[in-house]
């Protein structure tokens, strides 16, 4: 009995060894196959600031282009380290292209180009940097995708879910944003939405902001669009100006930062941010056009972001009696109940 069992065990282990050999063979072929189709020696250097959203964008880039080019990623933690590195990276890595994610790497590159104006610069794409148009106008060989979501994208979506006309939308902004607001006005007009604009000085006091915002909220508008301006959205200003005034405003408030729609803050009803993964795909499309053009930027192009992620504070909408089409809630990424 014991001998028979031993024989059985020996046979099973022989079968197992053969199986192991076969599996190893399969893995070897798989490895060989992948080695052959591995990305080329054409390297794209990704220079990023720290942040989760950048990781998603890089994931999108790699998913889309990772089989055709190699990406080298450098996350930079502080300015000093970074400013020393940019020239070093170009010399050592010799990338075919640069991609900047975030404000700081781009600012350092602006400085680098200024200090080395006679050099030839590789093509570059800038992403996730605020108000990109102002930053890259003087840069050579660069394209980019803006970070700000145009008002029209948010408003067309809002119009879908709110069962009330959205024809006039108020916006208060500082004068440095004039070009951006005008560009948005053109897009909104295409969708038959009028922007009711209130421009304030770049240096505006709390009481002036309070006065103008109060005036805007009492005017004939169907919703309020809050532009992403750090100075106007300072926590102290949110607490002392926005929230007290918005208490009486029973219409949708569209913000560009998800956390401004968070529960119990009583600020934004609807928020729209860039879909960071999709931003990576959009950038990959831009990069592939440059690749197909023999690694040359054909013309200075800055695109708006196409894809967004949204959130709706359903509780605040109900409190303010803003009628929401319940059938359309499936179009919302994040519902705050």
């Amino acid at each position, binding site marked *: 009995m014991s001998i028979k069992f*031993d024989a059985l*065990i*020996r046979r*099973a*282990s022989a*079968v*197992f060894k053969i*199986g*192991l050999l076969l*599996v190893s063979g399969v893995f070897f072929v798989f490895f060989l196959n992948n080695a052959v189709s591995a990305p080329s020696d054409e390297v794209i250097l990704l220079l990023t600031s720290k942040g989760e959203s950048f990781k998603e964008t890089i994931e999108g880039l790699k*998913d*889309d*282009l990772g089989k055709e080019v190699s990406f080298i990623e450098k996350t930079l933690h502080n300015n000093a380290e970074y400013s020393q590195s940019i020239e070093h990276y170009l010399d050592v890595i010799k990338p075919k292209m640069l991609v900047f994610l975030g404000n700081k790497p781009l600012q350092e590159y602006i400085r680098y180009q200024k200090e080395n104006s006679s050099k030839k610069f590789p093509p570059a794409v800038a992403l996730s940097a605020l108000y990109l148009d102002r930053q890259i106008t003087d840069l050579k060989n660069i394209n980019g995708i803006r970070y700000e979501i*145009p008002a*029209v*994208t948010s408003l*067309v*979506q809002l*119009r*879908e879910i709110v069962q009330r006309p959205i024809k006039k939308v108020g916006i208060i902004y500082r004068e440095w944003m004039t070009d951006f607001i005008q560009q948005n006005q053109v*897009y909104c007009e*295409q*969708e*038959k939405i009028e922007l009711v604009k209130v421009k304030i000085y770049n240096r505006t006091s709390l009481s002036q902001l309070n006065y103008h915002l109060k005036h805007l909220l009492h005017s004939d508008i169907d919703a309020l669009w809050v532009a992403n301006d750090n100075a106007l959205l300072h926590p102290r200003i949110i607490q002392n100006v926005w929230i007290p005034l918005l208490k009486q405003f029973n219409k949708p408030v569209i913000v560009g930062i998800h956390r401004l729609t968070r529960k119990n803050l009583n600020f934004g009803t609807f928020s729209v941010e860039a*879909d960071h*993964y*999709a931003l990576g*795909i959009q950038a*990959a*499309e831009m990069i*592939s056009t440059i690749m197909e053009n023999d690694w040359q930027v054909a013309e200075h192009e800055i*695109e*708006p972001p*196409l*894809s*967004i992620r949204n959130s709706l504070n359903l509780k605040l909408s109900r409190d303010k009696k803003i009628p929401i089409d319940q059938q359309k*809630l*499936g*179009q*919302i*990424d994040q519902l705050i109940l």
Partner: protein
Amino acid sequence: MDRAVHYFIISLLCIGALSSLSIASANKLYVFYPTDVRPKSLQGKINTLCPEINTVAFGRVVDFYRQIDRMPPNAILSLKPVVTRKQTHQGGLKGTLNGQYKEEYVLVSLDKPVDLKNIAQLKIGVLDILGRRAMKIFINDLFDSRINIKRVVKIEDFLPLLTFKLADAIFVSRSTFDKLKSKSRQNLVAVETGLSIGLAVIGVYQQNDNKINRCIKNLDQPTNALLGVDHWEGQL
């Protein structure tokens, strides 16, 4: 003897692990269907109607394909070209709309209809359902011409593409065109292309899973509408 037993147990464990990779996960349905609603919402609807199966919906084709490779389900549901490309799952139920297995596609532009004769000079917005390279090949084959495409990843991204003039026209199904028209106040005009693309189908791993088939055949009208069909055909 002890060593032999040890080998035997390891062999059994390895055989179990390997077979679990090759056998599809029972009653599992993966869905990738680009629609207005978010994947989790679509997944919730199907799971509510079909509690006996486990449905997972994906928003990105790359994640859909990746998960099929990692953990093959019994069945997958997507547009025909997406299922056809993934050769592991074939031959299940077919969705129909007004008795047709395919839907007509049109070229939509702002204000002025595009001239099909100049298609090679235009930038055409398309929904990425296959990935960058495969999508390019698919569209070129469909038009039988080299097309300059600009991809979007969600249906809702089509309108911005036109508004911001990042494409001359978008290539969309007739039903998507109708939805865009109701959503936008811009003057959207469509040109017939004479081209059509297969509607949603089910691809099955090795053999039909009756639970999944029965569930899909019994989906309610709103859920079918989300999947772009009004009926499912095929054997139970």
